């Protein structure tokens, strides 16, 4: 049988324009960065195997998978809560691909590879909360949504996984958004519209934040 | 003469505050030939048709609050007969024809305005669906015109024709559709029925049914005493399940909340009734200038006459997609009514398994336009004990027989109709 070679590309590749967007007479209040080329695996416990999955996750990642809406991070992986008895595994460079994880969780969970099914957008900057407040009904105040808080929610009628990563070196909060690839362009436009008044610095990165 | 230019001028001097009620606010008698539960448009229309068409004048209409205090006063006042399925098509056209002669029939100005109803379409597939519906209407003798983009642009140049996501491609127009003044419809039927001897009894809540040894209904228990009746008709959409439960019946109905909205008054803009085809939004402009609009039901069971924010947002988004320039218009009022959502989206007009008890229910959110038709066919059923030919498919047992009339084709999931 012939070998297939899938050419993967970002769902935002043809709409993302690197550089400045919106208001130009101010320092950009928003940074929008798309993160490309990541591995993302959805892990869902099988019926009655919640505890087994928790144990297997601890063995595999050296830390407990989140059982509350938050994210946990190790040097090479971030686990993001996505619902009861399920979480997302975000990593790079082939360390936690579906082939590897399916062995670790063969007894306890069902896995699905979402690596090229989602877009990952990182929002930061002095006006990040003001911009997200136009779109999201969640309270993103630091007291209510601290570092590593996570939520499965909807923004502009679009399902997203939202979590706060480590702050930027300048102390600004970073909000990460995972969105279905086919909805990414629509959400991207909505975010650009919401951010425009604050001035936007658009870019993309191959590195996880 | 009760109403004339002179009486109007005279009343203006006292700020129009001294107009007299034109129907009798009656007290209950011991017994009536027919008791109708529900003093909304449908109940009052039924009483008027019983008295005027079928010669049954010993009739009472019982209303828990004041007449027109339920859905009759909570709708968006649209009248039309653009339905597609057998059963609905003929019935709503019967109703449309009764709207056209209502003011003469009742000698009352119900402000029937045949300004046209246009359903916009936004894709080739939707155009085909509307062409089919229009053809169905025309085969049944109902007016329908499929308009192309140029015709819609000429009629409503203010629409956003540059919407890339939902481009307006044309519309299905029923010129005979339009609006009527909802409160005046209630008062008109009350006025005309009362003149023929019908007792309209307000603040009279039904609390139970009187039954004889064979189970036949003999009357109703009310907050104003026992009232005997030869036959009892229920016209209490929104509360049908609760009233039917007093007679031991369970109905194929859920109660849901539907919101309606009116904006502050603006200059004349919208010449007709129009619907957005890519979302749920319908709008007309009242004579005072307010935009009267609505959309989908909230989607959860409710007897509270108020809704929630997500549907408000959804409806306003629909309006903005068609008319971005209304974005700065302020919302004046918003309210909710309780809909009898049936299992196929179509009404039920039938005898019940309880002898002497008759049902007029399940209007979903199409009740206002049906008011005169509903009154006629329900009166026919009450007077003759047989279904009117234009309502012959609205039987209660149609669900069991598999003869549903499901315009949307979503099945027994009422919050989707």
């Amino acid at each position, binding site marked *: 049988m012939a070998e297939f070679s899938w050419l993967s590309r970002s769902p935002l590749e043809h709409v993302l324009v690197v550089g400045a967007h919106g208001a130009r007479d101010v320092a950009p209040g928003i940074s929008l960065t798309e993160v490309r080329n990541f591995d993302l695996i959805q892990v869902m416990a099988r019926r*009655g195997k919640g505890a087994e999955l928790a144990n297997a996750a601890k063995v595999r990642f050296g830390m407990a998978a989140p059982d509350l809406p938050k994210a946990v991070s190790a040097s090479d992986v971030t686990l993001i809560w996505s619902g009861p008895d399920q979480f997302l595994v975000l990593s790079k460079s082939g360390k936690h691909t579906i082939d590897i994880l399916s062995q670790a969780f063969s007894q306890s969970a069902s896995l699905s590879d979402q690596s090229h099914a989602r877009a990952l957008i990182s929002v930061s900057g002095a006006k990040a909360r003001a911009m997200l407040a136009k779109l999201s*009904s969640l309270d993103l105040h630091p007291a209510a949504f601290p570092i590593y808080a996570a*939520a499965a929610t909807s923004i502009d009628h679009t399902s997203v996984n939202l979590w706060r990563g480590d702050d930027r070196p300048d102390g600004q909060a970073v909000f990460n958004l995972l969105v279905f690839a086919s909805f990414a362009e629509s959400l991207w436009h909505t975010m650009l519209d919401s951010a425009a008044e604050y001035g936007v610095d658009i870019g993309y990165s191959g590195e996880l934040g | 003469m009760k109403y004339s230019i002179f009486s109007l001028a005279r009343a203006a001097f006292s700020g129009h505050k001294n107009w007299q009620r034109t129907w009798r606010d009656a007290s209950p008698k011991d017994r009536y030939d027919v008791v109708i539960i529900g003093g909304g448009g449908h109940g009052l229309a039924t009483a008027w048709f019983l008295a005027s068409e079928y010669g049954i004048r010993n009739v009472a209409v019982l209303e828990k609050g004041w007449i027109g205090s339920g859905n009759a006063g909570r709708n968006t006042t649209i009248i039309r007969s653009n339905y597609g399925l057998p059963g609905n098509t003929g019935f709503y056209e019967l109703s449309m024809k009764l709207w056209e002669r209502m003011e003469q029939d009742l000698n009352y100005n119900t402000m029937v305005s045949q300004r046209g109803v246009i359903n916009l379409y936004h894709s080739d597939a939707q155009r085909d669906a509307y062409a089919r519906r229009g053809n169905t209407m025309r085969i049944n003798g109902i007016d329908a015109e499929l308009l192309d983009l140029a015709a819609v642009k000429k009629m409503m140049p203010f629409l956003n024709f540059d919407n890339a996501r939902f481009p307006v491609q044309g519309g299905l127009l029923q010129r005979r559709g339009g609006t009527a003044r909802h409160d005046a419809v209630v008062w008109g039927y009350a006025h005309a029925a009362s003149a023929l001897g019908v007792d309209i009894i307000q603040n009279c809540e039904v609390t139970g049914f009187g039954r004889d040894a064979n189970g036949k209904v003999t009357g109703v228990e009310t907050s104003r005493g026992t009232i005997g009746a030869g036959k009892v008709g229920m016209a209490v959409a929104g509360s049908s399940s609760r009233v039917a439960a007093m007679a031991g019946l369970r109905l194929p*109905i859920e109660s849901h909340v539907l919101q309606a909205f009116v904006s502050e008054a603006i200059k004349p803009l919208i010449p007709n009734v129009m619907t957005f085809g890519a979302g749920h939004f319908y709008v007309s402009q009242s004579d005072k200038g307010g935009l009267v609009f609505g959309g989908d039901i909230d989607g959860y069971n409710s007897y*509270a006459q108020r809704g929630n924010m*997500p549907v408000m947002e959804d409806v306003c988004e629909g309006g903005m997609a068609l008319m971005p320039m209304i974005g700065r218009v302020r919302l004046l009022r918003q309210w909710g009514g309780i809909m009898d959502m049936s299992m196929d989206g179509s009404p039920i007009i039938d005898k019940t398994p309880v002898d002497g008890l008759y049902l007029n229910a399940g209007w979903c959110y199409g009740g206002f336009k049906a008011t005169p038709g509903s009154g006629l066919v329900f009166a026919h059923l009450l007077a003759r004990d047989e279904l009117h030919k234009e309502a012959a498919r609205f039987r209660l047992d149609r669900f069991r027989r598999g003869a549903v009339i499901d315009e949307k084709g979503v099945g*027994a999931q009422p919050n989707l109709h």
Partner: protein
Amino acid sequence: MRIVCPFCGERELGEFTCLGDAKPLRPAAGASEDEVFDYVYLRDNIAGEASEHWYHGGGCRAWLKITRNTLTHEISSVEPAAGVGARQVAK
């Protein structure tokens, strides 16, 4: 109406979808036509406190069992529905 999802916390109503009364149970295979008709078409249409199934589709996608007063919209309890996540399905 805002709903406190047992998994996500308090969220706006727009993230949820109502399925309806949680009381009727699907008749067993081989049930009579009357039972099936009753299950599919007839409703208690409760005016007052009702137990309902809701779906948090705009969030964690869990099915919830919510006790809510249909006269006031007041919600008195929100629980995970049977079988949510890796839980066993109730018999």
